[in-house]
């Protein structure tokens, strides 16, 4: 794993190590805050994991209502299955990112090169983004307001990253 995809903890250690020093009080406080918020983020990640099928089903229905003319709704079973599979991947990435408290895993696995990939597969990016909006809304429906506020930026990160 390269330096650019470190967690908040390992990033601070890398800087301190470069200067051959122990972590400062301020750095330790940041790490403590990260740990404290981590328990809530883990709980939300677990809710998303446990309900991923529901979120995907609701999201897919909503997506087809808004974008009826799209490869996944064309009757082609491969496109349909791929659409559902990819939504599952993105939910999984959001659950990982919540646990790490960082969007790096979304970037490295699901954003870099994604636009080129979907374009080459003949998937209109505009529709893909709409699909991610529906996925986000389906997840928000399921979460409490507080939990939703924590999870929302990770979905928005995907949407921003895939927007043409």
């Amino acid at each position: 794993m390269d330096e650019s995809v470190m967690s908040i903890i390992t990033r601070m250690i890398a800087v301190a190590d470069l200067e051959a020093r122990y972590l400062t009080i301020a750095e330790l406080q940041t790490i403590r805050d990260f740990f404290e918020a981590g328990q809530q983020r883990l709980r939300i990640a677990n809710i998303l994991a446990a309900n991923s099928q529901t979120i995907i089903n609701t999201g897919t229905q909503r997506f087809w209502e808004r974008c009826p003319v799209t490869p996944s709704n064309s009757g082609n079973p491969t496109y349909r299955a791929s659409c559902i599979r990819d939504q599952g991947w993105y939910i999984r990435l959001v659950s990982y990112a919540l646990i790490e408290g960082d969007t790096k895993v979304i970037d490295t696995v699901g954003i870099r090169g994604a636009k080129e990939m979907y374009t080459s597969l003949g998937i209109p990016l505009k529709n893909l983004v709409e699909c991610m909006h529906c996925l986000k809304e389906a997840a928000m429906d399921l979460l409490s307001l507080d939990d939703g506020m924590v999870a929302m930026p990770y979905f928005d990160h995907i949407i921003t990253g895939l927007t043409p």
Partner: protein
Amino acid sequence: MQDILSQVINHYDVIDRFLDEPAIALVTDFFQTGRLRVQVVAIINSNPVDIVRESARQLFEEIPELIQPGGNAYTTRRHSMYLRDMDYFLRYASYAILTGNSSVLDERLLAGLRDTFNSLGIPLGVTARSVQLMKERVQQKLSEAQLGNSPFVAEPFDYIIHALSERNV
């Protein structure tokens, strides 16, 4: 360098799975011990010189040949190198308590260390003993501060000791 969260997630990403029960238990434990981990490291960071000095004193008391003429820590320069190296081990142990795994030790401390020490003629057994003494000193400080003795405190020290110890070939 990875912390335990990245390590778990990389593993599950490759097999295309949400975290399962054992992984969730691991991560939960990491978050729940987080505050304590930070407190432990704060104790170490506020007393590194003391921890090293006391442990070194004890080491040279146990193995007085080290600082006698011809000993491996003889001459002020070599003596100070012992202190410097001990501080080095303590610092990496303090990092590893926060990452919850051995990644930072493997990549930044232990890679090539045995060969380096061997080529410099520094006895590995003595070095391992110095790490053990620092571990005990840290544990004592934690008891004094009423922070108990969680298993994650000993882990990085024991990992270093194990890596320094001679293996059966």
